[in-house]
């Protein structure tokens, strides 16, 4: 996926998320918008902070953090305390995205990772459910109408006392956005029709989940078809299929591999839901399957996946005035397209050595754009330095 396609994908996904957030705000009130805003700001703040710490250019076209934060937020109940949400987003974006190299190369689905972090840290807060039109305090999130979620109820052997229609339209105590199955399905169909996402992963995932629910019903005393509706309409299955499994950074690229990926994710997700400890077994399963997407791609005969460098790779200049050294480091791809910037003239072998010592660990990956001194000259200077040192001994 090229940079432009990725931007386009993120843009469409953000619009889709806002449509669902709007439905959520109708049922759960203005706190939905407040939490969505905080989620976006937190994700962006982490991106900015990391770029400042790493002294790299801030990539304003990268929306993966905000998208993941919004997906995560809409899977939470409306009474969630703000600190739970903020801490989870900070942790997941900093660790799950930036530690692994940032945009397009992070190995785990960010939204799933955020959800898992929140679930293991504050399970009692994350797995509650709030009735539609309940009074919720805007700041603290306190409500008297909180109950346990349908997925928890099914896990404990119970059956949700709501009609299939109510579960389709999300009219029952639940989370902020992931319960509007009809809306999510329509958005999904629209995006598949417009070719913004491919059908392979979501459809394979949903069909396999339904098949497992049919073949191995969890709730006793109900028909197999009723088991399908209970399993599919609860636990944010549709939401996960459309938004989490469509992340291009953490899913395979070829159609065959996508089908296998969707199938395996569904099998593992249902195992986690059946025997796991959390309602959102799908997110935990997705983290595990994310490790295998490269392997799936290889066995399905896909092309070797290469890490794509962003198109607008700029220069990274670090001017260290105190030492009077200007270091110009450019990534390989940018080197081919743009003229290298001017570097301060390296006059003596000593300056050359300092330059080497500054950046010796990057020598495999970057090209020094110094016009005044070639690599051979730098190596010569280093040899000279070594000889001098030996002579000194």
């Amino acid at each position: 996926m090229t940079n432009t396609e990725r931007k386009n994908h993120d843009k469409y996904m953000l619009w889709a998320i806002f449509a669902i957030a709007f439905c959520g705000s109708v049922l759960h009130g203005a706190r939905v918008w407040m939490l969505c805003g905080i989620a976006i700001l937190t994700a962006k703040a982490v991106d900015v902070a990391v770029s400042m710490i790493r002294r790299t250019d801030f990539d304003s076209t990268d929306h993966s953090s905000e998208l993941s934060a919004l997906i995560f937020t809409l899977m939470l109940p409306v009474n969630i305390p703000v600190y739970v949400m903020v801490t989870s987003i900070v942790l997941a974006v900093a660790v799950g995205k930036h530690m692994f190299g940032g945009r397009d190369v992070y190995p785990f689905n960010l939204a799933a990772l955020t959800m898992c972090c929140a679930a293991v840290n504050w399970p009692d807060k994350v797995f509650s459910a709030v009735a539609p039109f309940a009074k919720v305090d805007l700041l603290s999130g306190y409500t008297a109408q909180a109950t346990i979620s349908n997925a928890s109820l099914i896990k404990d052997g119970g059956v949700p006392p709501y009609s299939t229609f109510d579960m389709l339209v999300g009219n029952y105590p639940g989370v902020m956005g992931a319960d509007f199955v009809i809306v999510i399905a329509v958005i999904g169909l629209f995006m598949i029709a417009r070719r913004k996402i491919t059908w392979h992963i979501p459809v394979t995932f949903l069909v396999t989940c339904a098949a497992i629910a049919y073949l191995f019903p969890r709730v006793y005393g109900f028909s197999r078809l009723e088991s399908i509706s209970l399993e599919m309409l609860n636990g944010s299955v549709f939401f996960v299929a459309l938004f989490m499994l469509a992340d291009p950074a953490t899913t395979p690229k070829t159609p065959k591999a996508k089908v296998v990926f969707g199938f395996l994710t569904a099998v593992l997700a249902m195992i986690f839901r059946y025997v796991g400890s959390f309602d959102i077994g799908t997110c935990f399963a997705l983290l595990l399957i994310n490790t295998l997407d490269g392997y799936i791609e290889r066995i399905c005969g896909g092309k070797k996946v290469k890490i794509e460098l962003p198109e607008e790779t700029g220069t990274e200049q670090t001017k260290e005035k105190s030492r009077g050294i200007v270091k110009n480091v450019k990534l390989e791809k940018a080197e081919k397209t743009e003229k290298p910037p001017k570097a301060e003239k390296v006059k003596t072998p000593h300056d050359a050595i300092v330059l080497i010592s500054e950046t010796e660990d990057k020598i495999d990956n970057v090209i020094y754009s110094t016009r005044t001194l070639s690599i051979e000259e730098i190596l010569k200077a280093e040899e000279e330095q070594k000889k001098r040192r030996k002579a000194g001994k």
Partner: protein
Amino acid sequence: MKNKDYSYLYANWDDTVRRRKITLSNPVFVKGLALAPVVVAGTTVQNGILLCIAVFFLLTPTRIITSLITRHMSVPFKTFFYPFVSALVFAFVYYYMYRYLGTRVLLLGVYLPILVIDPLIVKNFEKTRKESVLYSVINGLRNTMGFVVACLLVCAVREFLAFGTIAGIKVIGVALLPMAQYSFGGFLIVALLSGIWSTAIRNYKYKVKVEAMHSERLS
């Protein structure tokens, strides 16, 4: 530090790294040794202290005994002799720890006995280099100190994040990140501290190089 010292450090960088076990070649943060006890059992400072006591009484004596006995042994024998010696030493250490510190020693479960085969204690078994008793004492103590610093740091951070306390003393009374008490939290904390540690080492290495260059230029 004088510029001459930096030149010396730069010229003998490998030796410097080998000698500075606490900082430059920390057994936990740099070499990744003894990860299991630190990651899983090191949830509180109390556990950390128990681990440190065990390592203190286990590491150096094992090194001394093995350096005395295994001088003329070939590598395959050494492979099993080192763990055997450390297991024997550990039997006494464990017994006396249990006697004087009580059942809290048992709370660490398998993570105290597992030290006997940890590469931290039996690391040298793959090496054929013979070492003198004095060297083994110095090296053992350096390694022990490196482990103590890393272990206590990890334990303190984890206890603070998971329970809001340090060594049982209430600091903020709020669990900032309850996952720090689990093994995956332990992995993460050790990874983060290891990252910070390696950044500090890189910066120090850079400083030594630049200062060494500077002094050479002056001379």
